[in-house]
């Protein structure tokens, strides 16, 4: 577990050629850790048939609506997504 509640993070902008659970509209976006969950097997590895997928901490990340949809987010919109640790970077770090 690398991040704690309140930490600022950004999502990875990468576009891997396999099953991946960061939707395009959430890539390379800044958010804030809202909850830290248990470690769960990484879906990317499970989807590829890995018999022992790595266990990674899952986080609830909150994004301001304007960060996700710069044009047209309703005011005061906050978007929540559950994301695995390897999908995230510290906010200051470039992808």
């Amino acid at each position, binding site marked *: 577990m690398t991040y704690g509640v309140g930490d600022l993070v950004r999502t990875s902008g990468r576009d*891997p050629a*396999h*099953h991946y659970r960061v939707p*395009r*509209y959430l890539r390379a976006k800044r958010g804030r850790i809202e909850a830290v969950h248990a470690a769960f097997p990484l*879906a990317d590895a*499970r*989807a590829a*048939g890995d018999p022992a997928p790595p266990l990674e901490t899952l986080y609830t990340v909150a994004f301001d609506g304007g960060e996700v*949809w710069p044009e047209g987010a309703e005011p005061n919109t906050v978007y929540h997504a559950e994301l695995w640790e390897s999908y995230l970077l510290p906010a200051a770090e470039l992808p």
Partner: protein
Amino acid sequence: MSRLNDVGGLTGFGPIEREPDEPLFHSEWEARVFALNRLLMARGLYNLDEFRDAVERIDPARYYGLSYYERWFEGIRTLVIERGIVPPETAA
């Protein structure tokens, strides 16, 4: 490679049609596909992520023309062929 299922937030698909009192299934075969998928996962033939991956691997030229449960059926068919459960000629 962004997969063709990842259309959240894209414009150009027109408005989302909302169906009042939408039934769980629109015909019986859809319920059968739903049940078949649950059964095959419960039996350990594949897991949910492998199923999602199989749906995302549908030929792009066909994907958008298929309905939701038609995509499920395609995903199931891909997996039972790849795992040698059903010979390809039978699953056609």
